[in-house]
């Protein structure tokens, strides 16, 4: 919930409209959605780039680094990898 100041402290509202600003993590650290986490075996990876282009969250970089802050654990990368270099593992949450 956003913080709200008391009425007497408010300045003139002015121009407020539904304009949003582009930002990573626009809905927060979506990594918290995960149940399973993808783990990459770099030795098996031949940088075919399929996981990069298929990731619906754009959280695998072109040099195949997974951003775990945002990875939702959908499993597409593991499913599509032709070398089975990515494995989905049940994530232990602390």
């Amino acid at each position, binding site marked *: 919930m956003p913080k709200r100041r008391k009425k007497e402290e408010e300045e003139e509202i002015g121009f407020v409209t*539904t*304009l*949003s*600003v*582009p*930002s*990573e*993590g*626009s*809905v*927060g*650290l*979506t990594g918290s*959605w995960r149940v399973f986490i993808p783990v990459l075996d770099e030795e098996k990876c031949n940088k*075919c*780039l*399929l996981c*990069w*282009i*298929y*990731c*619906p*969250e*754009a*959280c695998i*970089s*072109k040099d195949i680094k997974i*951003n775990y*802050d*945002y990875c*939702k*654990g*959908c*499993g*597409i990368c*593991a*499913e*599509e990898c032709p070398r089975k270099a990515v494995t*989905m593992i049940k994530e232990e949450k602390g």
Partner: protein
Amino acid sequence: MRLRDFPEDEVFLQGSAACQGCPGSAAIRVAFKALGRNTILAVIASCTSVFQSPFPLSALDVPTINMAFATGGAVASGITAAADRLVAQGVFDEKPTILAWAGDGGTYDIGIQALSGAAERNTDFIYVCYNNEAYSNTGTQRSGATPYAAWTTNTTKGKEEWRKDIAQIMIAHGVPYVATASLAYPTDMFRKFAKAKEIRGTRYIEIQAPCPPGWKFPSSYTIKIARMAVQTGMWMLYEYEEGKTTYTAGTKRIIQGQSKLKPVEEYLKEQGRFRHLFYPERDEETIKEIQDRMTHIFENLQFTHKMKEHIMEIELAPPH
């Protein structure tokens, strides 16, 4: 065009409100890799309206206007006319790409009027329908794009009608470019977007978007289902320009005999929305109906293709 040549720049910013395995965000990523940042985006009421995340942050890093459901072709008409004025005024050196992005609801049904009007005027914009074959954003109700026999919340015994084909309707409008695309064939999709970018007038691209919660399959299968749709003929890849339709990628390979048309059952069985065709008992009649239609379509296409080759052979044979 190979994957390694795809630009690294992301217009779609990670950490969005999209579902796990969302085909919509996957599609918009590939589209923008081909179109680039010199693009004005109009998002029509759909899942995309939601997965770009709520006020005040956005997962889309291009100028974006969200618009009401029935307005796709119309809002783009206004944007593109204004862009022409801005070119005339000297504000733009190069006119940006105007992109309207809608789901099957906003394209097939409530949005068809505005799309048809814009196409009839040969409005200069690209219209993308990312088609998850239902009104997913409102919880998976049937749309004109929902396939025959599919479960939705308001066709609980399976849809009784075959789907409309808007890509064919767009071809009937005689617009400069119409294409279908699939998430499982990204280089084909990229090529089509890159081609569309260079054409002027109304360009229509429809991307099949398998939806994990709506079609009821695990979120890791989105690309796999998209691939199976093409391999079984349930989604066909082609492009139309200057009066000619050319089949591409996986569809082309089937028609030309390099791949075999897979049985539709393999595709249907993976999706919960077709579960009633298999449990509690097989609905042999419906499965056969769907299979027969696929077989018929492809036999015709394969025959036509062979005939063309045959004619070529006769023509090339030296007189003797």
